[in-house]
């Protein structure tokens, strides 16, 4: 595991009017998936590439486990960091097996030494080794190529993984499947992952930390819930879809709709469960209230009315201007 700290990092290119990255500071916690979210030109890829020194910052520093990257030899640094890019990343003249063992082999390991490791990794990413070891990238589908890319990035067992829009070129179904598998693999391996995306949906699905960048500046950084619940400004609110009812239901916890218990409730729900779970449980069980439980303690209850109220309170201006979409939707559900 590795912790990454960005300390007042800036990058300006000569001749460019504005810096590509402008005084960005944040910390990626160990073992987490941190999503760098922004449109093209927001500086997210520049920020990523500064971690393994493909680009050096103009000012500020990046610390990995407390050591500045610029104090390390770039070659050694890169060998210790996994890197996955869009599908073009596989070497077309090498077989799947040879691609996966690129890093071990430049570290001087022989093919025989890394055979078991290669097989293990191929199994991990869901490619049966007997079938795929000897194939060339051209003989693989986009999704399969990306699996090999992931296996290759993991070959030297790096603590830190950089992923630059790895699923950007895949079709929607394959992308979703790859996202699920990444989460699945991450549950066992606990790498620190820095992941660049322009896809808000992807950022919310994968990230336990989201960093929003625009024009090289950090807009806001926090958990998906924090960004949804308290966007720092209109830009963030619009980007994360703070007024997107479906996303609110999916990510905001039932704690948001807590009210004092009015009586004993038969059904219970965890305080961290998303509103959607609360809603479904209310509808399915036909109860009017659910007891909210946090670490074994009863905190209060949620009802359809309290959920509806919570969503309405989150958008005071929308209600005032007549754009009553969230409260409408909520009351529609509440009245169901």
């Amino acid at each position, binding site marked *: 595991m590795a912790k990454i700290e960005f300390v007042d990092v800036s990058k300006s290119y000569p001749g460019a009017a504005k810096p590509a990255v402008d005084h960005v500071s944040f910390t990626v916690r160990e073992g987490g998936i941190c999503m760098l979210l922004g449109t093209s030109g927001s500086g997210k890829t520049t920020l990523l590439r500064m971690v393994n020194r493909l680009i050096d910052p103009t000012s500020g520093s990046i610390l990995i486990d407390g050591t500045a990257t610029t104090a390390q030899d770039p070659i050694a640094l890169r060998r210790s960091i996994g890197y996955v890019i869009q599908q073009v990343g596989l*070497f077309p003249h090498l077989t799947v097996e040879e691609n996966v063992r690129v890093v071990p082999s430049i570290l001087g390991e022989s093919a025989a030494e890394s055979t078991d490791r290669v097989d293990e990794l191929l199994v991990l990413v869901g490619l049966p080794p007997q079938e795929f070891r000897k194939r*060339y990238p051209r003989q693989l589908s986009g999704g399969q190529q990306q699996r090999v890319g992931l296996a290759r990035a993991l070959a030297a067992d790096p603590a830190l993984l*950089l992923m630059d829009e790895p699923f950007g070129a895949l079709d929607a179904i394959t992308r979703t499947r790859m996202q699920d598998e990444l989460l699945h693999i991450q549950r066992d391996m606990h790498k620190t992952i820095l992941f660049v995306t322009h896809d808000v949906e992807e950022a919310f699905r994968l990230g336990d930390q989201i960093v929003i960048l625009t024009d090289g500046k950090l807009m806001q950084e926090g958990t998906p819930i924090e960004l949804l619940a308290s966007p720092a400004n209109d830009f963030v609110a619009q980007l994360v879809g703070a007024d997107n009812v479906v996303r609110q239901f999916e990510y905001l916890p039932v704690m948001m709709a807590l009210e004092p218990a009015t009586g004993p409730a038969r059904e219970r729900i965890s305080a961290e469960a998303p509103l959607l779970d609360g809603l479904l449980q209310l509808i399915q069980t036909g109860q009017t209230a659910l007891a909210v439980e946090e670490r074994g303690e009863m905190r209060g209850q949620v009802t359809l009315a309290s959920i509806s109220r919570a969503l309405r309170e989150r958008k005071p201006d929308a209600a005032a201007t007549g754009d009553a979409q969230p409260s409408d939707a909520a009351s529609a559900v509440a009245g169901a």
Partner: protein
Amino acid sequence: MSYIFDGFNWDLSDPTSIPNLLFQHLIITGISLAIGLLIAVPVGVLAARYTKIYLPAITLAGILYTLPSLAFMALLIPFTGLNPPTVIIPLVLYTQVVLIRNIVAAIRAVDPALLEVGRAMGMTERQVLFRVSFPLALPVIVAGLRVAAVTTIGIATIGPLFGVPDLGYLIFQGFNFRINVQIEAGVILVSALAVGVDLLLLALQSFLSRGRQVVAVA
């Protein structure tokens, strides 16, 4: 064809028999191509990276290529006499235009994203060159070598005029003594050699392109 199939012309003890002339022809073109590659590969690799080298290198090679072979070899006689170097030196220099241009184009055509991936994996610049650029460029380089090989085999036919008895001997000898079958034999053998070498290099090219689409002649 009767000349080719006449057992008398396959006597190994006769230095002007078909197998000996063929062998000479192969040796002279083989040496020329090998030296040509030894010069063109480093020059090409450098020229692909540094534009400042490319233009002078390709201009010089282009000028040398315009020298007529007969005149070029004749010019060398005072220095090297009627010996193989008189033939080999021009042959080597003639290969340079095709080889250098192909090597530069092949290396430059490698997807820069792949070079970046190599660097991001922690390859040194040397490893990027030998593990990524060069293997990916190799099939195109061999495509250039095919063109150079066919040209070299053709030009080497004038070798006998400068003391190198290769397959051209059959043509000159046949011409001098008005023996048409001998001329025909020479022409057929030189052509067959050129086609054969080209096919062999084509096979090498497809082998080197494994995993990718085979590039047509560059």
